[in-house]
């Protein structure tokens, strides 16, 4: 285990970094990809209704909602101006503040919202990976090539058969 530890640690660190980068860039890439078409429903779902229902503008179905209905009209007006998705969302953000957006932006402090779950998962994955390697190394330390002789695992069929034979005997 000792000889392999630096290499494994290195590998684990690389994996961790990849996961972290993926976590950081996935939302960015997705938002860039999503910038091209400005679909009405997509923008509705990117905005939160301010009536207190907690739903997106798309999902809010309150009768004569004082928030969702004017917001929908505003989305249509912005789309009629030929704006793209990101431009329209920027407009709503500057007019109503960040709370209007249904998910955090992918810049500044808000990047933490996106990155942290993946970062923690990467750390957890690193710990679990190292633990599995350490525990599996502990079970066959004497194997010179690092590979333990294979123990044939009993198949579920064999186990059931064995159990049935026992039960039958009783």
């Amino acid at each position: 285990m000792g000889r392999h530890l630096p290499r494994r640690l290195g590998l684990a660190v690389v994996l961790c970094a990849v996961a972290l980068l993926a976590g950081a860039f996935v939302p960015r890439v997705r938002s860039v990809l999503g910038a091209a078409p400005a679909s009405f429903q997509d923008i509705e779902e990117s905005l939160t209704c301010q009536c207190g229902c907690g739903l997106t503008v798309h999902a809010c179905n309150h009768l004569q909602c004082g928030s969702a209905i004017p917001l929908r009209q505003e989305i249509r007006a912005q789309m009629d101006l030929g704006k793209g998705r990101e431009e329209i969302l920027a407009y709503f953000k500057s007019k109503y503040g960040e709370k209007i957006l249904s998910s955090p932006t992918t810049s500044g402090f808000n990047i933490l919202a996106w990155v942290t779950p993946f970062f923690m998962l990467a750390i957890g994955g690193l710990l679990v990976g190292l633990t599995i390697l350490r525990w599996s190394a502990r079970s066959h330390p004497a194997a010179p090539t690092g590979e333990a002789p294979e123990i044939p695992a009993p198949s579920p069929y064999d186990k059931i058969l064995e159990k049935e034979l026992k039960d039958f005997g009783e």
Partner: protein
Amino acid sequence: MVDVGSLALVIGLVLALYAVGMSLAGAYWRKRDFIASAEHAALAVWGLVTIAVAALMHALVTHDFSLEYVAHYTSSTLPLQYVIAALWGGQAGSLLFWLFILTSMTAVVLLQNRERNRELMPYVTAVLMIVAIFFLAMLNFITPPFQRLAFTPAEGQDLNPLLQNYWMTIHPPSLYIGYVGCAIPFAFAMGALVTGKLGDQWIRTTRRWTLLAWFFLSMGNLFGAQWAYLVLGWGGYWAWDPVENAAFLPWLTCTAFLHSVMIQEKKNMLKVWNMVLVILTFALTIFGTFLTRSGVISSVHSFTQSGLGPFFIGFLGATLVVSIGLLIWRLPQLKSENELDSVLSRESTFLLNNLILVGIAFAVFWGTVFPVISEAVRGIKITVGPPFFNKVNAPLGLVLLFLTGVGPVIAWRRASARNLQKNFLMPVSLGLLVGIILFASGVRHYYAIISFCLCAFVLTTIVMEFHRGIRARQAMVGENSLTALLHLIGKNRRRYGGYIIHLGVVMIFLAITGTSAFKVEKQITVKPGDTFPMGRYTLRYDGVKSHETPHIAYLTADVAILDHGRQIDTLRPEKRFYKKPQQPTTEVAIRSTVGADLYLVLGSYDEASKMATIQAYINPLVGWMWWGGVVLALGTLVTIVPSRAPARAPAYAPSRGPQAVATE
């Protein structure tokens, strides 16, 4: 009756304090009579809380509007089932109901363990009574349920109309039983830490309690989803609302615990991790109650909000400090000789399963509290809504689904190439085949394709396991397929119950995928006689009828459902106008089939023009979620009911230490 209830809570608090003191003193000085006295006091607390619940229920049913709680949450025209449900519809009542479930479970635990676990029991009693003291203190000093008004109003303000739905009569109790059930394994874990009885005795004792708690958490979440689907009328069932998240969090960590505990039972490993999961799960139940009751994060589900937040945070902090302190204190004794024969084994898969479950729990927790963090750090309010949770959790959910298929059939200790081929060739092939068929059919929603592939993969592993077992029985005793199936399940309930639960999970994943990827929706304003297409149906709006009761005024639309020109059904979506408080609600109309729900909402109606706005949704596969819940419940029932066959020790289970044997 009211004064009796109020007095019962005061005496209950005193007796709970006495029970804690005597339990700990009895354990310290090894005085059996002290411990017995503490247990009797705990039973008396249950009796007193029951009296308090009965008193409040009596006040509710007899419409005693001199009580603030009754006047605030009921009215004389409220149907009886909702008058009863008002017990948990408001702040004080729900805390009292929480306490009632806790003390009832405490009583059952005490009676179950009169002759067992005697070294653990004083600490178990003390922990459960400390939790009870917290709630009793809230009810006596902060939010008393028996508060009288200065004058008696002629009529009550009524229950929030959104809560006047039959799912609300069972959703909160299910969730509370789930929350409170998590306190039992926590109490035993704390007892194990204090006494140093750190074997798997506390785990075996609480296995059914944990399963019961998990079952009710599962049902509570599903009932809540059903309520949202029927009452909120937005065509969905889950909006990642903070309160929904709060109920989901302990379910995730409890699920992780139920899996990792198998490794401790089989291989005497992961003792520290299991302790962490038990502590985390209990802490998250308190966090969930805090979120629902404090109003610190705005939520559509927070029907009552108050200044209880600081008390809950204080209690949560104290719980974490003490329990983690005990865990650190016992770390040297919890270390075990952990070994894995191979990276490719069921043990590794379970570790990964735990990683993903706790990872999802962290992501949900982080998204839920991030608005508070953002406001504290930047002073700017932000929203973390469904798009965030869907983006972060969808890939993790798919990994979890994959592990659901791998975990049960990969070999313990070491998976050989033969084992992998034998167990996974067919499932992987069928999974890929489903993907190819979907792609060839023009489906381009890649998450959905992956999800359906994985559902097919997991389903095949489950079917293969049952098939093998049935074949084995048929070969052995010549039973027919059905008898072999029943005996197979009956003789190994835990294993096959688990498979049935996984089947339910696959069905729920199918529903989530169907509704997320292929939902169709339309909003249309029509006059009587107008028709419009919706999926495979044509819908014809036939007008609106109105009628009223003393409690509610109804506006009901008649919408004929035509299939190839033939009327096959009539749906009647409603608008209801509650008279006290004056509030409109939506009553959706649904036509359910195996493939999809046709879901109609009456958006608005103009009396002058007779025009109505109809919101129509096709929700593919949504019914599989509710039936998945039924299958999940069935699987849990199979797992939880004791098997008549004597339990056999695992073939390679490590020999238990003398201490563990002595305590059994």
